[in-house]
């Protein structure tokens, strides 16, 4: 059976809620995120393993990972 094309997750960042504390950036095990000015941005979506540590540790309800 042919291997299915790897589906990428969808990372939603609520920019109005993000306070750029960098918790998600620092705790991401695969360095998916980066700080861009006063908000967090996705740098390397392919590396995301859907572990959701960014969502769990975000104090500001500002980031969500959808499958």
């Amino acid at each position, binding site marked *: 059976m042919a291997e299915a094309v790897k589906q990428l*997750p969808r990372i939603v960042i609520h920019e109005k809620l993000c306070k750029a504390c960098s918790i998600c950036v620092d705790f991401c095990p695969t360095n998916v995120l980066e700080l861009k000015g006063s908000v967090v941005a996705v740098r390397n979506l392919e590396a995301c393993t859907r572990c959701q540590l960014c*969502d769990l540790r975000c104090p500001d309800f500002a980031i969500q990972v959808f499958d």
Partner: protein
Amino acid sequence: MSATTAAKKKLSVPFDYDKYLRPGKLPHIWCPGCGHGIVLKSLLRAIDKSGLTKDEICMVSGIGCSSRTPGYVDFNTLHTLHGRALAYATGVKLAKPELNVIIVTGDGDALAIGGNHFIHTCRRNIDMTILVYSNFIYGMTGGQFSPTTPVGALSNTSRYGNIEPVFDCCDLAKASGATFVARGTAYHTLELERTLLAAIKHKGTSVVEIIDECPVYYGRNNKFKSVTQMMEDIEKNGTVSVKQADKLPPEKVQGKLLRGILHQVERPEYCEGYEKLIAKAQGKG
């Protein structure tokens, strides 16, 4: 689809916090990196797992950064005087014993100005869940040292280092008679969720001390470079799970705070005893 993929699929659907939050209240007032938001999210997930409806919960708080929590959640809420959250909560629980009362309070609020209410609530064993957010400082009033500020730590009122010994919230609760005593951290957020769920389900006074970080006052005063460093030094490396503590060599446990459920016993609950007393006085008992 195998069971593992199904589990992974289930995990990757983000939790819908909005159903427990009052619309339009976010962003919250907590500073960037403050652990209170992480703890609130763990609490909302635990409440969701407990199966309680929003109307069955009453959240009571005193004054402080942590005590702003009831402003954001869509439960029955009560924001009261400094240190007096437990006194109000006792009133709520006695008037409406069917409510699940959750008290959100800080280390200064619960252990300093509210110390007396704290020990007597634990002594009575009233069925409520007390969450003590311990960030080692008074954040809202400008960074004064609190009963949990470690010896030697700097704060805006201990410029040469704090010389006061620390109150151990969990030991105090246990000695006062609380029937469920636990500790969690904002770093170990899933473990905290499980601890909070057990605390909510417990019949009797449940005290959960939650170690989180105040990057603005405690962090800057004590030369922490970042929030991440605070979380790793204080919460990750400064604590050890109670389950692992027995297996680890003593030098790895010494000086660290224990995490997890530290004490759980059964004891008659106050509201039930009170109802029996009423029935007896009315000649029905």
